[in-house]
């Protein structure tokens, strides 16, 4: 390590937001030719720290040295001048412009798209990016957009790269591709910082890890000298067990029967084709698949939010009578007495209202109750208090707008509300996306608790390891078709992975 030069050295950085101390005297060194993972729970100040490096925030106290020289970073422009570029979680691209136009946007000098395109292609060839400079952003997949963001900072001459949760939106394949170019960039002598919650990515990609907890710098170590348990303990501050419990199902009975479900989206593209399965009570049915293979449509169809083309979705009552759910909206489903809870992928855009406080969000499901034309906030307030207390939601109070909470706490509020209605069916989509490891395990525990109560849980996940540990059965979707339904206790990552990429991949394998 002594042979490497510190590209960035942050000393005693403090940043407060009102009464909240986001960073407290943090010291951090970033070296050239090294990939550094910045670890910490949600709200531990990782993003804030990196935002100060990239000129979005200005530190209250402390100094920043770039290549040994003290610098003041007042704006993202200053940061870029010093060769620091950040790729944010939310992309900052203009949809109607092409990749090249986005990349050179705001740069001084003459507009010369041809020359710029050539330079972009050079950069792409050098590191192995696949991007068409002429393609418009709205035509791109999430991973392509991310590539454009990375090329953008490289084009502007960045040699210190910060990536904030870059893999949260990528498929495993896309992630692998990204890691490949990141390693190439490291070998080229660039300094790379990545913020992530996925421990196996930390292990496979980074050279060194640095841990923050509650805004304080805890320590750093070489990745090869540590392990997941040690890193997690440092993040959380006390020893945690990282085992997902899988209780045996008690008295499983069919609860949701889906038969021949076919769905086309508004543009007439087939999203689900002839999907059939049964979800039992007291069991967790995991749904695996590359993202965008119809998981969203499937859950939304069951929840009454998706127009279907053909097929049946039946809810099986305790006594065996069946209720057809297709053609009913969420309100009708609830009125039929089917207690169905849904934790959607888009928490603040669908499950909750970001600008409303906890009480009003709790009321979303129940506000219609009673004949009075007025809302009753008494019981929602009580529920909000209960959820905050029992799920340990970190919030200034129940009158705080939920968008002010960190990702993990937002999810706790949403899950807390959805399970409060004592559901018989629980649908969850990417329930732990963007959540730190501690919050993730809280969510797994909550889901298991529901399972033990006899709830039929349908769990759409992206992390195969978790799916294999948590589920009883796994349904694998591939391009909108059921590629296979396997017993989670008697399968492995390999088999599920094969099914994900090819319908009936198993037979092909044999």
């Amino acid at each position, binding site marked *: 390590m002594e042979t490497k030069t510190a590209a960035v050295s942050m000393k005693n950085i403090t940043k407060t937001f009102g009464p*909240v101390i986001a960073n407290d005297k943090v010291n951090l060194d970033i070296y050239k030719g090294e990939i550094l993972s910045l670890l910490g729970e949600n709200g531990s100040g990782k993003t804030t720290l990196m935002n100060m490096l990239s000129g979005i925030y200005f530190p209250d106290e402390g100094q920043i040295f770039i290549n040994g020289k003290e610098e003041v970073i*007042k704006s993202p422009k200053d940061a870029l001048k010093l060769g620091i570029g950040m790729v944010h979680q939310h992309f900052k691209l203009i949809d109607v412009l092409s990749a090249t136009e986005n990349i050179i946007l705001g740069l001084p000098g003459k507009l010369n798209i041809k020359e710029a395109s050539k330079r972009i292609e050079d950069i792409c060839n050098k590191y192995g990016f696949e991007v068409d400079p002429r393609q418009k952003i709205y035509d791109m997949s999430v991973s392509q957009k991310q590539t454009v963001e990375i090329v953008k900072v490289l084009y502007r001459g960045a040699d210190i790269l910060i990536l904030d949760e870059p893999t949260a939106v990528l498929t495993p394949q896309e992630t692998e591709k990204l890691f490949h170019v990141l390693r190439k960039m490291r070998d080229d002598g660039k300094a790379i910082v990545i913020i992530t919650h996925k421990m196996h990515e930390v292990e496979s990609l980074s050279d060194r890890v640095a841990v923050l907890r509650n805004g304080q710098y805890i320590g750093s170590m070489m990745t090869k000298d540590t392990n997941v348990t040690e890193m997690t303990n440092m993040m959380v501050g006390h020893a945690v067990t990282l085992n997902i419990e899988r209780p045996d199902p008690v008295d499983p009975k069919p609860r949701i029967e889906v038969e021949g479900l076919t769905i086309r989206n508004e543009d007439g593209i087939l999203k689900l084709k002839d999907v059939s399965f049964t979800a039992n009570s007291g069991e967790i049915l995991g749904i695996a698949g590359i993202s965008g293979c119809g998981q969203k449509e499937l859950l939304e169809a069951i929840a009454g939010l998706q127009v279907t083309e053909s097929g049946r979705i039946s809810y099986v009552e305790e006594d065996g009578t069946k209720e057809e759910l297709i053609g009913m909206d*969420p309100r009708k489903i609830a009125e039929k007495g089917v207690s169905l809870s849904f934790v959607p992928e888009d928490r603040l855009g669908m499950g909750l209202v970001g600008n*409303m406080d906890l009480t*009003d969000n709790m009321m979303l499901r129940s506000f219609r109750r009673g004949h009075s*034309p007025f809302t009753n906030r008494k019981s929602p307030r009580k529920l909000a208090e209960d959820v905050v207390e029992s799920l340990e939601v970190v919030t200034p109070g129940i009158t705080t707008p939920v968008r002010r909470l960190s990702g993990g706490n937002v999810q706790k509020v949403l899950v807390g509300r959805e399970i409060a209605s004592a559901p018989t069916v629980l649908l969850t989509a990417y329930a732990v996306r963007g959540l730190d490891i501690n919050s993730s395990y809280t969510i797994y525990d909550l889901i298991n608790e529901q399972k033990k109560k006899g709830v039929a849980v349908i769990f759409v996940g992206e992390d195969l390891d978790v799916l294999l540990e948590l589920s009883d059965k796994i349904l694998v979707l591939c391009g909108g078709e059921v590629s296979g339904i396997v017993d989670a206790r008697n399968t492995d990552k390999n088999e599920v992975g094969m099914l994900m990429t090819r319908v009936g991949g198993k037979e092909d394998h044999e």
Partner: protein
Amino acid sequence: MNEKKREPLFHIVKRSALPWYQALLIRIAAIVLALILCAVITTITTGINPIQVYESIFAGAFGSARKTWVTLQNISILLLISLALTPAFKMKFWNIGGEGQVLIGGLAAAACMICLDDKMPGGLVILCMVLASIAAGAVWGFIPAFFKAKWNTNETLSTLMMNYIATQLVAFFTIVWEVPKGSGKIGIINQDTNIGWLPQAFGSKYLLSIIVAVLVTLFMYVYLNFSKQGYEIAVVGESENTAKYVGIKVEKVIIRTMLLSGAICGLVGLLLVGGINHTVTTTIAGGQGFTGVLVSWMSKFNPLTMVFSSFLIIFMDRGASEISTNFGLNHSYADILTGIILFFIIGCEFFITYRLQFRKKAEKEEQ
């Protein structure tokens, strides 16, 4: 030390929620600063003592009992229009058709006064006027809402276009009903019989609008904050996806809310025609359908705050007429003053949300 000097003079920091009295203090400071700036500009450009100008602005609004009543009545009308627009805006439905909805309500009231005056007793005519104007306003709100709900058309355009239709209809009927023929205006309707003239409340011809405004303010405050429908409006406005997710019928809420919005505008048309002017012209709404948008936004959709916002605007407007006559200044001069004050009031919101953090001197000395 050397490097400290390169720290920016100040940077912008987001505040955590400000206590209400501090926020109020900032707003008052903004108005005071605006008045000082107005005074300076007045002295420089006209040479008139600004204190005198302020005195006559005040006199214009509250100089006599009659002036005070008219001011209050004008406030009521602007307040009512702002209140009418608010539920739509809260739903993120950009209803800029308040002007047309008021006009068509007024036209409906006038039609009843003109066509029914000899056919039924006065009380019944008034009842018809009330129903007709409210219905007309509601229809003017319904049409854009229906297209929005069904085919997701842009409501900004359609509500705006409905304004022109209303204006042209009024222009057309002005010719049909003009008295005397060829004058190009309708004149005071039923001047002799007073049929269809709204009754005076407690012996004052100004009170009726004021009472209606107070009632609608209270209604709207309760409706938006404590009713289930108000809650639905807020959810739809914040996120249509969330609304669908909990089974709120978004189309229904859009149409219902615009019916309400239009109906209250229609009611304003009734007050203007039946209670205040007793005639209808194309300019009877006087652009207040647009001023109402400003009032509603400035008050952050809070009906109680709107009372103050509409007061401010009407106060300046009334004062403006006064200074233009007293000092021979153009009416536009008062508009400039109003503009400055509004600029400060809206601008001060920045300082309520953000704080400027200046380079710390103490720290500098320390080093």
